[in-house]
């Protein structure tokens, strides 16, 4: 097995500057694996809150997965909740504090396996919250088992020969499912495997929060994130693997644009 070089880029290197830069809301270094896409998504999320001037009116609701360790390094009020239940907890928070901006942070195991009912019903109720799904198609925190979004053919520790629909069923494209519900304000799928994807995902997050502030209903931003450890590839191989294996099944783009944007496009 290839050993991943965990060293930071050398001092003076341009990449070092990027690696060390962080917005004010990040209090320390993350503890996730090299090549993980989740810290990139966290940074986009926190930068978006800063840019929209929401830092002192935001509550984050965080589920259970690798990203759960972000609770220690994000300088935002946080409710750390049970696996799968973030949209329900967020509903309670938002209903009694309607002036806050509420986001949930869940992985695919959290949202699509354990908490499918919660996200679907929160969407149908039109809760004014922004739900962020970090989808890497695998249970990363427990070491690489199959989730509800594992793509067909993908090898995991519980689908050793690749996910076989006969034995393991089919993946659930949650964002597409939610996008079809009345009650949603905005649904999009981004990915952090490329620079373009990162920039696009950030615009999606911004749009989702703007939709929440406008009271348009539930926003869902699914973000495809690399998990080289759970995919059993090297860190540098992560983005390419994601592009080939996941983006072909989960194409990037806006699945339910904001109503105003949709009307504009139609006109």
């Amino acid at each position: 097995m290839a050993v991943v070089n965990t060293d930071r880029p050398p001092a003076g290197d341009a990449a070092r500057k990027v690696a060390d830069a962080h917005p004010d809301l990040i209090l320390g270094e993350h503890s996730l694996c090299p090549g993980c896409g989740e810290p990139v998504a966290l940074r986009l999320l926190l930068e978006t809150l800063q840019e929209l001037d929401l830092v002192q009116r935001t509550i984050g609701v965080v589920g259970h997965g690798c990203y759960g360790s972000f609770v220690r390094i994000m300088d935002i009020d946080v409710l750390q909740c049970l696996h799968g239940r973030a949209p329900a907890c967020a509903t309670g928070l938002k209903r009694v504090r309607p002036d806050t901006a509420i986001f949930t942070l869940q992985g695919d195991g959290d949202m699509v396996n354990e908490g499918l009912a919660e996200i679907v019903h929160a969407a149908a109720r039109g809760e004014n919250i922004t739900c962020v799904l970090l989808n890497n198609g695998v249970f990363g925190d427990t070491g690489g088992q199959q989730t509800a979004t594992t793509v067909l053919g993908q090898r995991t520790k519980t689908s050793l020969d690749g996910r076989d629909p006969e034995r393991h069923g089919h993946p659930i494209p949650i964002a597409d499912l939610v996008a079809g519900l009345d009650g949603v304000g905005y649904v999009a799928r981004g990915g952090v495997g490329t620079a373009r994807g990162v920039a696009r995902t950030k615009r999606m997050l911004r749009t989702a929060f703007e939709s929440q502030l406008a009271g348009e209903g539930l926003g869902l931003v699914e973000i495809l994130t690399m998990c080289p450890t759970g995919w059993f590839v090297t860190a540098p191989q992560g983005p390419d693997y994601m592009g080939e294996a996941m983006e072909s099944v989960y194409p990037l783009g806006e699945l339910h644009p904001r109503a105003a944007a949709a009307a504009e496009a139609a006109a």
Partner: protein
Amino acid sequence: MSPATTAAPRRELLEGAEAIARAALAADCRFFAGYPMSPFTPLLESMAKLMPEAGGVCINVESEIEGVNMTLGAAAAGTRAATGSCGQGIALMQEAIAEAALNETPFVVFNMARNQQDYFQCTRGGGWGDYRTLTLAPKDVAEAVEHTQLLFHLADRYRAPTVLYGDPLIAQTRVGVEIAPLDLPPLPPKDWALDGTQGGTGHSRQVWTWAMGKATEPGPGPDAHWQAIAAKFEEIGAAEQRWEASETDGAETLVVAFGSAAKFTEWVVEGLRAEGHSIGQFRPITLWPFPGEALAAASEGARRVLVFELNAGQMIDDVRQFAADRSVVRGIGGVSIHESGLSYGPLLDAPEIRRRILAALEEED
């Protein structure tokens, strides 16, 4: 036991569930989430009607799991919040009730139970980790009105979920009752609650079962945090025991019962005493913490301790643990369910209770 009231409101004819809903609103409950299930349903319906008028939120949820987690979220924001169900629905909520006990989120759970088979569920908890739920078991609607207000107070005071153990008689009986606000001592501000205002200050707040804090401000972590939680429940266990002891001094026979059943046994015991029997009654009002020392004192010298509960024998475990002489403890209740499955069966009947007590007296005499 009844704290003084600050006003003298009008006595009204109300169904128990509506009286409890009004008491919750009087205690500033402003969030309620529930899933219909008899006999909890009328409480949800009352909340759906009354909560919007009070400026609060009531959500008819898609599952008990969602309901209790919504309640946890609202409570984490500092709002007085409640949920409820009965038996099976409360079983679905146990994971989140345990979570709330461990992340210190206060709210009230109304178990409008179908019978008395949820004693273990209320007092032992079906969740995970070292926690208990402070549980009050009113004997009638009037007491439920007091207990409802007290439970919101105690939940906030200890930052822990609390439970009202009701039943079909309390939920669905229409009685004359006053919603008299309890005069309870002031509580500290909820400076722990999440309002979103602390972001970017370096001191943003967390509600977190693991209590690990931030990279820049480490929290106690699970080891120290859960030890502190355990110590807190020990404190509650010592400080919050409530009970009612009637004519227990020197009584040869002591009847122990809780909730509505105790109202039936109370009537039977008074009758037997009037006939010359040496008999008293002990009623735990808090099921947890169980009033063990008080029971030990009340049962001192008793030749028999008769436990009447409408289940296969659950509270009797606690009675045996604390009775002055455990060898004289015996159960005279049993499983008794109405054929609908939704309420008590024929055993909750004063003549039958009297027959069982007399049989116990004759058996040993």
